[in-house]
């Protein structure tokens, strides 16, 4: 387990800010203690300092996971955000998309969201802006990337894609193995 290098930190924060903007500060300085990011086996883990101390006792090959996994760095040093980060991103999300109950299942299976399934969308969403997807009951379902701006969404035909799927909570069942 090691701290992130500057490069890595930059990459990761860039990715995160796509979804939550400047609220990254709030992730680090929390009222209940300082939290930090650490790298282990190419995965970024988010944990409090107390857990960090405890985790240093465990040898590297035996350690499986600490705190919450946010995502991993690919071989070419790109950062891929995992669904496991949803709990932390959802409260700070800047742009949100609500999905109708009928298309909820479709999104949970890994499909993109079409205009016909779109319930609500935050105003002034730019194109290719990172969004957090919610169900109509305000339950966070995953992340995505807006394919169209809010204005365009209003005008486009019902079968066109408005949000590209990136991660959804159905992955807990579909790809349990890749979480570790």
């Amino acid at each position, binding site marked *: 387990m090691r701290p992130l290098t500057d490069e890595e930190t930059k990459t990761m924060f860039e990715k995160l800010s796509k979804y939550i903007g400047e609220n990254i500060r709030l992730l680090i300085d929390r009222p*209940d203690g300082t939290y930090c990011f650490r790298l282990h086996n190419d995965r970024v883990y988010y*944990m*409090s300092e*107390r*857990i960090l101390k*405890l*985790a240093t*006792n*465990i*040898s590297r090959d*035996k*350690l*499986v*996971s*600490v*705190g*919450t*996994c946010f995502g991993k760095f690919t071989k070419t040093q790109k950062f891929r955000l995992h669904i*496991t980060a949803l*709990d932390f991103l959802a409260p700070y999300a800047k742009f949100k998309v609500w999905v109708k109950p009928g298309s*909820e299942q479709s999104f*949970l299976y890994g499909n993109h969201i079409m205009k016909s399934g779109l319930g609500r969308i935050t105003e002034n969403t730019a194109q290719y802006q990172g969004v957090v997807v919610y*169900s109509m*009951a305000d*339950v*966070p*379902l995953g992340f995505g990337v807006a394919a169209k701006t809010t204005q365009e969404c209003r005008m486009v035909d019902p079968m066109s894609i408005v949000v590209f799927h990136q991660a959804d*909570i*159905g992955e*807990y*069942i579909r790809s*349990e*193995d890749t*979480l*570790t």
Partner: protein
Amino acid sequence: MGRKLDPTIKVKRGPGRKARKQKGAETELTKFLVEGKTVVGRKKLSSRARKRAVKRAQVTKEPKQEEKPKKGFSDENNKWLKPAQRKRKIEQSEEAEDSDSQWEDDDDDNEEGFINKQMEEEDDDDEDMVDDYGADEGDDQDSDGEELLPIEKAARKQKKQTSVKPESDDDDDEEEEEEDDDEEKEDLKEDEDEEDTVQANFDETEQFKLPGAADRAKEGLLQMDLQTIHQRIRDNVDVLSHFTEKREEGKERSEYLSLLRSDLCTYYSYNEFLISKLMDLFPLSELIDFLEANEIQRPVTIRTNTLKTRRRDLAQALINRGVNLDPLGKWSKVGLVIYDSSVPIGATPEYLSGQYMLQGASSFLPVMALSPQEGESVLDMSAAPGGKTTYMAQLMRNTGMIVANDANADRLKSVVGNIHRLGVTNAVICNYDGRQFPKVMGGFDRVLLDAPCSGTGVISKDPGVKTSKDEADILRSAHLQKELILSAIDSVNADSPTGGYLVYCTCSIMVEENEWVVDYALKKRNVKLVPTGLDFGNEGFIRFKERRFHPSLKLSRRFYPHSQNMDGFFVAKLKKLSNTIPTAPKETEDEVESTKTETAASSEQIQKPESKQRKPSSTPEKSNMGKKQKLKQKKSEPPIIRKKAGVKSENKKSDGPKKAKIPKLDGEASKKSKKPDIKQKVKELNGDSTKEEKKEKSQLEKKKNKMERKKLLKKNINRMGKNKFRKLKNVLGQQESGQ
């Protein structure tokens, strides 16, 4: 006091509770009584007299019906006993022959009729209760009843004539027996029935005692059908429960038992070993219940994740999706039991967003017993698939820290998944063998050990256990569990301000894996049992067959599928009293004794500065251990151990008994290379040591030097330092060479 037989008293009518109560004999009588007859002479009839009058009125109508067979009510009665034809009863009241039935209410009559009908013709009864349309059905029933009657008559005749009865008669007898209990019958008939039933019993015992060795062998060849076996099991259990009355002369109890054992094996598909174990554990009546309960699944239960939602809200959301559920019981505030569901319970959006977890009801119990508090550090030694870990995290509200460990890397993936899904942030997941634990990390406030076991409590989930387990499996599990529980105890910090508790649980019902392991821990460590806080469940055993356990084992709890309707489980809560480890006098293994003498001889070659806490007699063992560790390449000793004195001492001791043999070997190997003198001393003082000894010195000389050295060394056991010892060694070496 009787009810007032006054027709002028108002009777409650309507759908309420009081209207459903018995209306009173008076109201019934009024229907039957001819008006003129309530007054005889000048006196108004008394209550008894009125009853008699009614009886007279009815008896005169149909005297012939008394000859009808005893089996239930006659066919005429069938008509007015049906629920559908309640209205008819008034019309047919004159036809009622049984005087006894008149004393009861409409409802009662019908109920008795139901009971009888159910015993006789269950299908007909159901039809009656459902189809309440017109007289045609009644007529059909009548005809059916009439068909039965002649048969019944003939059967009874045959019964009386012969001793061996056809099966239908046996059924009749049984039913008649039951009816006897339910109703008042004429004495004659009762006697006949009793004789019949007694004879039936004799027949049955004779039947299954007949299989001698030859017959049993024959049975093995032809397949006996399960019905027969099941019947035989039931009868056998019946005989065994009332052995003195029902036994067959000359047949021993053990014969009945062995037949029962083989029948149970065949019927329920168990192997002999497991059935014998279960017969030891349960009394016979419970045994059948247990075996039956293992054939069906326990209900599906879920646990609300209070970090994300409340039980109320979750129940509402699931009900909206079409799930039929209920709270689990008053003992749990987070459990829900699922009766049926139109959507897959493991794939709803609520499940995926981590609002609940599929978990067996018995898995709630150890965590409830452990009750981790906020801010504590907790260890879960066998965490997969993570249900208990996440429950602990939700009780701690994501504060403190949890270490979730499991020896199986594949199953750890599910732990990771569940932890992330349920939003647990204070967990560290690692993949160690639980027995290594005090070395890796120690000083936890609470520890939960859900030990790997034979799985005899979860047979309903995994029927393979029925045939795959044998003595060796159980003992192997028990051995592993003993090692694990000692490691777990050593990982707890007894001086913790809020904790110092360990919960040991298994999903097994075997005494070898449960009470025996806890008893072993009580002997080996400074721990005591405390109440689990679970107020239901059976108490643990204090004694079992030839074993005797500590009386505090009463505080542990056992759960069974047939009594609590959850998987078989055992929970015990221990409190650690002190961090020091008790010394060998409690141990009984020879290895350890010889180790003791050996280490006394070799004494403190390497004394750790942290050994202040330990008792003197234990230090030699540890120092020997330390020496061995230094000499041997013990790589996985992280530096942290040097800092944590308490942990280290515990660690050493827990390794002690296991590695008792090794020091001798190591001593031999290393001493050859480095310190030949020590080797000699060790050998000499090992009066009873074993094969590793190579006799370089003659026995005589050894004996000579033995006493000297013992004296010298024993003086200095507590006080000698490393360098001093070397000096002494050299001195002794010179002495030897001098001699």
